[in-house]
């Protein structure tokens, strides 16, 4: 997806740096040229929030594993799982803000959006956790 400004004649120029330095708080007063259409800004914000909720779900999942799941046959495995999920949530929220920033910058410069590996990494990590949990459950059954 390539966001466009309302003015096709506007040239790609290198004078858009002011918009990078003045932050979100100068709400009053028009934005310097270079800001993307408001719908793109808001879509990027909501995408960030979707990742942010994913990271909160990981953190809550970590708490849930410790609070609600009975102990596996291996003492400590449950808490280790909880810690892994919780730290994963923290890492994911940092990845989310980085992604938000890269996308916002790309839109400002009217470039293509940068590629992301976050979904792939998250998918692989969740698959690994799933296999780990299944193995733990099977081994726990064997010991019960």
């Amino acid at each position, binding site marked *: 997806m390539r966001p466009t400004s309302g003015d096709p004649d506007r040239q790609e120029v290198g004078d858009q740096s002011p918009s990078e330095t003045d932050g979100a708080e100068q709400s009053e007063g028009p934005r310097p*040229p270079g800001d993307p259409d408001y719908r793109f800004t808001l879509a990027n914000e909501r995408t960030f*929030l979707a990742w942010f909720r994913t990271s909160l779900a990981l953190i809550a999942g970590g708490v849930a594993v410790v609070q609600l799941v009975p102990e596996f046959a291996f003492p400590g495995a449950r808490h280790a799982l909880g810690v892994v999920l919780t730290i994963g949530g923290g890492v994911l929220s940092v990845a989310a803000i980085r992604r938000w920033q890269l996308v916002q910058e790309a839109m400002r410069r009217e470039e293509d959006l940068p590629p992301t590996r976050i979904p792939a990494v998250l998918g692989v990590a969740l698959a690994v956790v799933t296999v780990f949990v299944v193995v733990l459950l099977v081994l726990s059954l064997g010991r019960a």
Partner: protein
Amino acid sequence: MTRARRSRPPAERPGLQGERTELAWERSALGLLAAAALLLFRHVGPGVGRVALVAADVGLALLLIGYGRRRGGRIRALRTHPDGRTTVPDARREVLGATAAAVAIALGTTVVIVLRT
């Protein structure tokens, strides 16, 4: 006049964008409340840390709701530039605040889990 009316700049008819964005912030606050509820479910870790974490969760949930309201307000005050673009300030501060909150919650939760029982 109908034509002029139809081509009004988006600033005058932002539609559902603001509502959707505000709701996205509020849904995120619900995630924090879920984490708080789970922490209260059973005793784990030192009581003081747990209660502090729950309080932090609830406080940050309120913060996110405030962020959402603020973003909604921004959206109702859209700017249309002379060249026809309509923009809204990006949510730099809100995004940073939310991320800092999530990292702090993750660290606090990890500590509580590690200092279990």
